[in-house]
């Protein structure tokens, strides 16, 4: 069994699987159930100042289903905790005392006033929690009150509030970033400049999941109206991977501890984020889809995979994929692959042919051989785009490397590039 313990920005946990700040971490009851199930840490659902009430509506969730796969993406319009601050603080203190080995991070969101932050930081520090996460990402409801994404989208605010938190407490500070920005590096650099111990990303993506065509309103529909909400779940994972990768390879933010969030549903997803440098991973949608038990597979799946790969501890593979994330112009122009159909496994659905024929390079022929349908790659037409491999429902198309004898040559060196820097 590999050592799954991890440390992100000074916050330690027995495994890299945390529950993200969200409905599953709203109160002692849920959090204790999560710890019992095996989760390494939780980020308590965002606390706000003890002032204007937070009131939620019903309904609160919209979802995208694909085929029989329920909740490919989930959208919510829930706000931060609507429970009294003192109740939350009391529970946090108790839970931390009862579960000392687990990470307990408290998510915070108060107005951009130093006094407000000073007040809540003191109260939270008193719980002896392991750290705080600054919710600069929530895209709905709270942003209209000048908090959440309204802060996260202004790098100066990100830096300022992060600095207040570092100045006025001794707790590790994770800055949770909103993806609803043009360039994730800007708020990430601000978080670092403000002294943040790490970043958590991504928060939810601004979205409308669907329009109810009977009601003619967005879903979730609240009495005939709907609004944009925060999108998460498997659908957003590719965006989250990209943003984590950008932070991991940026000269300024490289090495900044990351707690990755975004569609993480199983150990493999988690391993991918760790390979991009994440120290912990946060889960919400998958837990809201299947319950807390999924962590069992996450733990033994990751452990078994690490054992097979010879990784004894998380840091052994953490960030290993980062050097291989590069810019397009650094890709090898001379690398050549072509599709290959494993005829014995082909069920003759013809999808590879029709998508190549209609939308790509006319590189898969459709014939009848002795009356049987036969699909064959035309090597000289195949550009190795992979489309056929992705549409094949039987997974019987692989990409074969063509040994063309050519050396590595990227676009900056390619003579076909008018701005090529290739040596004469």
């Amino acid at each position, binding site marked *: 069994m590999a050592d799954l313990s991890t440390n992100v920005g000074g916050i330690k946990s027995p495994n890299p699987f945390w529950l993200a700040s969200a409905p599953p971490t709203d109160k002692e009851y849920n959090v204790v159930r999560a710890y019992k199930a095996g989760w390494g840490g939780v980020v308590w659902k965002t606390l706000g100042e003890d002032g204007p009430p937070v009131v939620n509506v019903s309904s609160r969730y919209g979802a995208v289903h694909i085929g029989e796969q329920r909740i490919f993406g989930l959208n919510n319009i829930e706000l931060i905790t609507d429970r009294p601050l003192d109740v939350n603080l009391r529970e946090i203190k108790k839970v931390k005392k009862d579960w000392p080995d687990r990470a307990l991070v408290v998510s915070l969101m108060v107005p951009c006033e130093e006094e407000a932050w000073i007040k809540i930081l003191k109260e939270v520090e008193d719980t002896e929690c392991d750290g705080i996460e600054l919710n600069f990402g929530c895209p709905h409801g709270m942003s209209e009150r000048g908090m959440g994404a309204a802060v996260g989208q202004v790098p100066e605010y990100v830096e300022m509030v992060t600095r207040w938190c570092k100045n006025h407490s001794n707790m590790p500070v994770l800055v949770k970033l909103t993806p609803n920005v043009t360039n994730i590096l800007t708020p990430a650099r601000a978080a670092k400049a403000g002294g943040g111990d790490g970043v958590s990303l991504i928060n939810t993506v601004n979205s409308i999941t669907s329009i109810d065509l009977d009601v003619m309103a967005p879903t979730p529909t609240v009495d005939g109206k709907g609004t944009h909400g925060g999108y998460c779940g498997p659908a957003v994972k590719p965006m989250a991977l990209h943003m984590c990768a950008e932070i991991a390879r940026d000269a300024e933010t490289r090495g900044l501890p990351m707690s990755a969030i975004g569609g993480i549903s199983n150990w493999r997803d988690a391993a991918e984020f760790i390979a991009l440098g994440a120290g912990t991973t946060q889960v919400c949608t998958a837990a809201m889809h299947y319950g807390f038990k999924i962590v069992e597979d996450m733990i033994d799946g990751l452990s078994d995979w690490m054992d097979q790969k010879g990784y004894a501890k998380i840091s052994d593979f953490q960030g290993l994929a980062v050097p291989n994330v590069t810019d397009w112009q650094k890709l090898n122009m001379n690398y050549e692959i072509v599709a290959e159909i494993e005829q014995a496994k082909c069920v003759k*659905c*013809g999808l590879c042919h029709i998508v190549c024929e209609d939308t790509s390079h006319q590189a898969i022929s459709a014939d009848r051989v002795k009356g049987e349908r036969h699909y064959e790659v035309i090597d000289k037409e195949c550009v190795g785009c992979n489309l056929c491999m992705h549409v094949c429902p039987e997974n019987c198309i692989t990409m074969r490397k063509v040994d063309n004898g050519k050396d590595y040559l990227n676009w900056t060196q390619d003579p076909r590039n008018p701005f090529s820097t290739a040596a004469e």
Partner: protein
Amino acid sequence: MTQSRDVAAGRCTANVLAEAFSDLHAPLTDQQAYNEASRCFYCHDAPCLEACPTSIDIPGFIRRIATGNSTGAGKTILDSNIMGATCARVCPVEELCEEVCVRNTGDHKPVTIAQLQRHATDALFDAGMQPYTRAASTGKKVAVVGAGPAGMACAHRLARYGHDVVVYEAKAKSGGLNEYGLAAYKMPDNIAQREIDFILSVGGISIENGKALGSDVTLDQLRNDHDAVFLGLGLGAVNALGLDGEDVDAVEDAVDYISELRQADDLASVPVGRRVIVIGGGNTAVDAAVQAKRLGAEDVTLVYRRGPEQMGATGFEQDLAQTNGVVIRHWAKPVGIKGQNGSAVEMEFETTELGDDGRLTGTGQSFSITADQVFKAIGQAFDPSPLGGGDAPEVKGGRISVNEGRLTSLDNVYAGGDCVEGQDLTVSAVEDGKIAAESIHLKLSEGAS
């Protein structure tokens, strides 16, 4: 040894009968249909489409179900097969579209095309939609003989083209075998008549029930009074066993019994033997055997002269018979009938085998079974007698000869369905009617600009 025949109605309570003759397959719920439709790969050059005698765009209609467009799916089906609702219930899909579904290869389980087809056609009927319009009247008149699948498919297409169609049907109700010849549990909720009503609702078709060709109208008359004639006569005769004693009251034709059962207002009024033998290996034999069992027969034995592979009944039908408690005895042929009217009969069978020359021969071994009711289901034959009188189309190999366009040897007479050479399936009959209608339309349009 003479025992009196034990044939009685009401062997089961009304509740048991209602359950036994309800839908063989419950209709899919919307969610089930969506899930199943999502299994379809939407193949290019789809094998299922090619396997369908009416070339229904199966991937196209299944995709429509998956997108929540079930009425569009229904229309896609009906565009190719106006009797798609019946075919969804009775087509031997395991030998047609579902047999070639590519998901047999990977999952070993085809997409359940028939059930999806039913879902879609039900959706369209339930919505009360009429997707077709009739073109302006051409003033041309076409006679269709037989309101079965071939005739009604032909009539519908001709009516859409604006021709006036009169359908002559010998029976009191329209639908042909859909109404009279299929097991009740396959065609519940009066679907055959709902389908006929739907076909008629396009307009331009009138049906004259109770008008039989040969007795009430002649082919010569029809040819004189119409611009074209389509013959969808079906099979009017039943093959006989050719044994002495075949005329005793215990020995009946399975098709007549099925028809009686289908037309009964109250299934508890349909008499059934305590011990039943069905002779034959096709779907009609299974329909008779299973229905007899479900009516309350104690023992039902289906005897077929060859093995399971040669049975005309599909594997699904054979399984259905066996799971309903029908005993199937392969490799035996009837050789004698002992009994008289009013008595049970002792049927004697000789076991059979394939000789070295590949021909079926008796082994000399025999056995007998006593039964109160014996159903003959050894095939039907085309009866050419209604064609007689004047000019009759050429009949070859026991069926009316037609060319590719379903034209007979007479210049304005077309034919299709079971009365011509082919698969003797509802779906092939529909295709014949469709093709004949196109040929007739082409012919009638000649000269018109």
